[in-house]
């Protein structure tokens, strides 16, 4: 937002750059505050949590003891929750991305009966609040004996209508019709054309849907809370929320859980944050593609 001229050396430009950077720095402090708090708190003993200042470290550095406790509490069920979350999010993420890509490709590159209707229904489904379906979904799944199994979380998470929408738009742009025609002239079957010729071009869109559906499943709470009842199938969100409720409501032994909950929170967000920083090239490009066209 330079006022006059493009020169990066002009005094106006430098003054504006300081001012705008300062605005972002303030917002950054707000964004960082809870993350810093959880990092600081995870290093404290339960006693220091109550008696020392919340936004700075205490003399007694207990991070590794706390992490050890998180993984040993209740026979080490936390590592099971972490593993469940990784499995649910990975399977649902890859599956949702693959099925969305196939469906989006079909809608973008083929003419067939019912195409408009199918697309309209999928577009309408983007508007349906999926959580409004969680309770009916539970009742339906309990009829077929699917509740309290990992499938009760994974299968519904494979349905990601925004992904189909995004991939349809993406396939429309990214794949020239000539490429498909050339494949057909060479005698390649439709599936061969998809897997050998076009899938490579769809990869950036695929990566975007993968990240979005992975995060959606990783962060999901309502669905697993409703459809799971055995702690061994819980994802981290449900397990940690249960510890949190015990810590907050439960008197006596409950309060000792505070550091456990905070250290558990730290452990469960660090991998995703690292993944986001490492994979920023993908989500920035991909979210951009989706965002502009949405």
């Amino acid at each position: 937002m330079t006022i006059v001229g493009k020169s990066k050396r002009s005094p106006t430009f430098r003054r504006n750059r300081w001012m705008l950077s300062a605005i972002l720095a303030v917002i950054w402090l707000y964004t960082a505050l809870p993350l810093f708090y959880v990092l600081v708190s995870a290093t404290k003993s339960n006693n220091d949590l109550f008696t020392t200042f919340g936004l700075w470290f205490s003399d007694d550095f207990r991070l590794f003891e706390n992490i050890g406790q998180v993984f040993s509490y209740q026979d080490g069920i936390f590592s099971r929750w972490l593993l469940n979350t990784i499995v649910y999010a990975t399977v649902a993420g890859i599956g949702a991305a693959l099925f969305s890509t196939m469906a989006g490709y079909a809608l973008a590159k083929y003419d067939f009966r019912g195409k408009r209707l199918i697309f309209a229904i999928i577009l309408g489904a983007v508007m349906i609040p999926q959580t409004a379906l969680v309770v009916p979904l539970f009742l339906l799944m309990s009829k077929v004996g699917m509740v309290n199994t990992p499938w009760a979380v994974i299968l519904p998470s494979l349905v990601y209508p925004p992904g189909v929408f995004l991939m349809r738009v993406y396939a429309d742009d990214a794949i020239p019709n000539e490429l498909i025609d050339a494949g057909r002239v060479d005698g390649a079957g439709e599936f061969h054309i998809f897997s050998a010729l076009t899938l490579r071009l769809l990869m950036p869109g695929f990566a975007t849907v993968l990240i979005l559906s992975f995060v959606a499943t990783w962060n999901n709470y309502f669905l697993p809370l409703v459809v799971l009842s055995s702690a061994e199938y819980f994802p981290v969100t449900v397990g940690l929320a249960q510890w949190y409720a015990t810590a907050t409501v439960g008197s006596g032994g409950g309060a000792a859980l505070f550091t456990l909950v905070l250290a558990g929170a730290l452990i469960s967000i660090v991998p995703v944050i690292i993944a986001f920083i490492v994979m920023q090239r993908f989500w920035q490009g991909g979210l951009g593609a989706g965002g502009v066209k949405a």
Partner: protein
Amino acid sequence: MAALKSRTRRYRVSKRLAPYLFLAPFALLFIAFLIAPMVYAFTLAIYKTTVVGGTRFVGAENFVRALSDPKFWQGVTVLLQFALIQIPGMVAVALLIALILDSGTVYAKSFFRVSLFLPYAVPAVIATLIWGYLYGPAFGPFTQLANLLGLPPPNFLTPGMMLPSIANIANWEYTGYQMIIYYAALQAIPADLEEAASMDGASSLIYALKVKLPLIVPMVVVTIIFSIIGSLQLFSEPYLLHNLSPTVINNAYTPNYYAYTLAFTNQQYNYSAAVSFVLGGVTAVISYAFMLIVNRGGRT
């Protein structure tokens, strides 16, 4: 010759069938896990189960009951207030950050872009419990700071403050995500537009506000509609904060919370299904109404 013929025929059938086969996996799951529960919710909702009378057909009774249930409307009202408190601030701040980053007139651009997006990677549940501790009257840092300065400790969990407190958690979680979408849209605006504008002597600030901002308004409207839909589904944040403030957040605080309570505390499955169904309808009506208002406003 024969071989070639059979090959051609297989290719023809395949081309006609292929789109359906590509669609099949998604379609099957879509029917099983989206359409079926919706239909099932509807069929559940037109029946009623009582201890004495068993299950009997009641037609629209459950829907009528939901539509005239003060607890249901209390939840909808709370969420509409929530949407009004939360969405405008989030959109404004996200746009401000996106415009600043897009202008390039800033230090450490990619550092800000990546780190401001990171809360999106934190599950809502975990964000809520962290903020719950920060808000906490017992050992929250805000209370500690107030005590240090001899001020009365702030209480974020009173009936009046609860919605702004939840809105703050939602803002923290989603502002960065909105910002990335807006930023990408701004970046996609062709650079030659800017050259044309600067030749006219237009300053960058005016350019950002008068040229770039209007270009991304349709996309901003779409994100607002999704935010409204998201608001009406609110569950995790109040469900967790209920532990801290059981009197402020009752078990019908939001419609989803109410449906959850009806089904799993009261075992009123039929009525719970009706509430879920009506919530879906109310959401559709509100998003549609918002779209109409925006379209009308856009034309005049």
